[in-house]
């Protein structure tokens, strides 16, 4: 039975450096981009790109589809916003607070969800996220419908004023690239190899003596933590944390971003995030047709285009991306 992601295609030895070349191109483009495009839009794309990469870690490299990733993204966003606004935390502490929140939630949710496989796992993650959504609606500190607004960006490390768009952009870029590199490190480590073994054939991995549940849980927590990092940063970028961030369409969107970009690739979710957010900006006046278009993309990708943009490119050139 065909797996969610094709096993690694045959890698031509000359193209071993493809990932680093790709990283170089990505970093260079992102450094120049704010001069050509609206920086606010770019920063949002970067946050979602990190979010999508975190999600992709689970589905692409462990084979677990989490349909409730908005839980970590959104709640990290709330805690970061609240700690920055009400407790007066500086940005790095606010982001840390948010990220740790995501880690804790990731551990709890992961422990519950790991007990089942495949489809059940996806549905459990969705249901848990929905429960926490209803909780967010009612609890006072989230501000309910209003969300937490006017979140101060503060001064990074005490002296860098993040209200300066350039400083903020460079900070967000640094967070994104750092997160991406961390994910790459996970994937190319012995731990990552075990994850891939679990994805390919879990019974065999168990028979080799690996406690697969622990590996899966750790991967889940890492994925949730990085999603939380993305959410916390986003809260400071747009200076708002709201119910949108914890609702299930947000979980669906990050799935779409990874699917379009390419599940199981390092650059796929990044491209996917940029594509989907650009589409939302450009089509904002079309109202409900955006929903339809997203649905059509889902269907088209699943039927015809399973490897996604980056996956197709990687497959064509027989490199790893």
């Amino acid at each position: 039975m065909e797996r969610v992601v094709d096993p690694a295609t045959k890698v031509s030895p000359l193209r071993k450096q493809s990932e680093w070349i790709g990283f170089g191109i990505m970093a260079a483009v992102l450094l120049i981009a704010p001069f050509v495009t609206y920086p606010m839009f770019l920063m949002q794309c970067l946050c979602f790109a990190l979010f999508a990469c975190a999600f992709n870690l689970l589905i692409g490299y462990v084979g677990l589809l989490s349909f409730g990733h908005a839980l970590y993204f959104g709640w990290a966003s709330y805690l970061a916003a609240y700690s920055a606004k009400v407790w007066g935390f500086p940005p790095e502490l606010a982001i840390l607070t948010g990220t740790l929140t995501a880690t804790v939630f990731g551990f709890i949710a992961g422990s519950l969800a790991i007990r089942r496989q495949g489809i059940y796992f996806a549905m459990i993650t969705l249901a848990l996220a929905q429960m926490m959504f209803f909780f967010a609606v009612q609890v006072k500190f989230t501000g309910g419908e209003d969300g937490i607004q006017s979140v101060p960006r503060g001064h990074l490390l005490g002296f860098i004023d993040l209200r300066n768009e350039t400083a903020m952009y460079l900070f967000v870029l640094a967070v994104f690239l750092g997160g991406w590199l961390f994910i790459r490190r996970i994937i190319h480590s012995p731990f990552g190899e075990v994850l891939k073994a679990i994805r390919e054939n879990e019974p065999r991995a168990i028979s080799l003596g690996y406690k697969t549940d622990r590996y899966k849980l750790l991967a889940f927590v890492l994925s949730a933590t990085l999603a939380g990092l993305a959410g916390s940063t986003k809260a400071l970028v747009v200076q708002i944390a709201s119910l949108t961030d914890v609702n299930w369409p947000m979980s669906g969107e990050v799935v779409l971003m990874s699917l379009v970009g390419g599940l199981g690739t390092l650059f796929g979710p990044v491209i996917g995030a940029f594509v989907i957010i650009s589409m939302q900006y450009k089509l904002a006046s079309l109202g409900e047709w955006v929903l339809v278009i997203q649905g059509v993309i889902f269907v088209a990708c699943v039927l015809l285009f399973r490897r996604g943009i980056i996956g197709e490119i990687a497959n064509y050139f027989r490199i790893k991306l």
Partner: protein
Amino acid sequence: MKRTFALAAFAALLACSTAQAQQINVKIGVLTDMASIYADDTGQGSVAAANLAAQDFMKDHKNVKVEVVSADHQNKPDVGTGIASKWFDVDHVDMITDVPTSSVALAVMQVAAAKNKAAIYSGPGSSDITGPKCNANTVHWTYDTWMLANGTGKAIVKNGGDTWFFLTADYAFGHALERDTAAVVEKSGGKVLGKVRHPIATSDFSSFLLQAQASKAKVIGLANAGGDTINAIKQGAEFGITAGGQKFAGLLIFAPDIKALGLKAAQGLSFTETFYWDMNEGTRAWTKRWDKERNAAGKLPSMNHAGVYAGTMAYLQAVVAVGSAADGKAVVDKMKTMTFKDPLFGTTTVRADGRGIHPAYLFEVKKPEESKGPNDLYTLRATIPADEAFRPLKDGGCPLVKG
């Protein structure tokens, strides 16, 4: 000396005449809900209203060019602020209008203030917009929760509905609506017998309606909106609530919602609005034009749509008086000194806290036998004069109001 004076006078004359012929360009952004719960109350109808205002204004002012753009904020504050920022920063938009959903409105008005543009609201309900969260770049047209609570609550108690039971949506907006209405009811001599809080987007109200029935209150106040209100009323008909003598009070309900309910389910419902398409010749004529511009079958203009038209017209008049749309605060300040007349709201003034003041009306939904057509929905029960309809200036807590 005489020559310098003559030269100066000549130059002044030249300047004056060029100022009169000076081209003024204004770009207006309709930020609305096009696909979700408020799409029929606002959405494309608001865009149509803004287009009508642009056309009407340009017809009378040949030197003004008004451009209208629109976008869907999907009821999300972050999407709303993202679009607003881009509109103000990149697309040269001068004024944003409509903005239903108070959470988005509160966020966007801060963006408008930060960039010194204007926000002329018709969609949101929160009375905080002209209260503690007010700012100098925002005008709030059409309605707010205080006006709804006061209008509906006071009028119903006066008509004999003096015992109330609240069905409240369990989030900030619902609580605020309940709190404001309960205060008015008690001040008018009525009594609140009880309340029950339900989660938003509840599809089944039977359990809560049973509790309301058991309370034997004469009036069941619906402190919720959109689909929740519609569901509660529909199911109330099923459980024989109105047949048993209890009446529903809709605290936030619009004409398109009534149409969705149908007269059979909604008959007898009392509520406050500031516009109804069939009130007079002016409103009827405008509705015909709106219908043509909207170009979709079976739609009714809501008071929000009317507010977008009237608010935009008022804003444009102020822009011409100031000379340009560039300084949002200056235009809004000018609006606060002018008196506006339009066929939809009558005479309107703008207060120091940004509140647009116009009359309000208590309506009751007709019985099916009383209705002469598919859009003949309301009977006018009472008119609340403009100076009584809205919260007194001193009670708002707006920092712009001195003393």
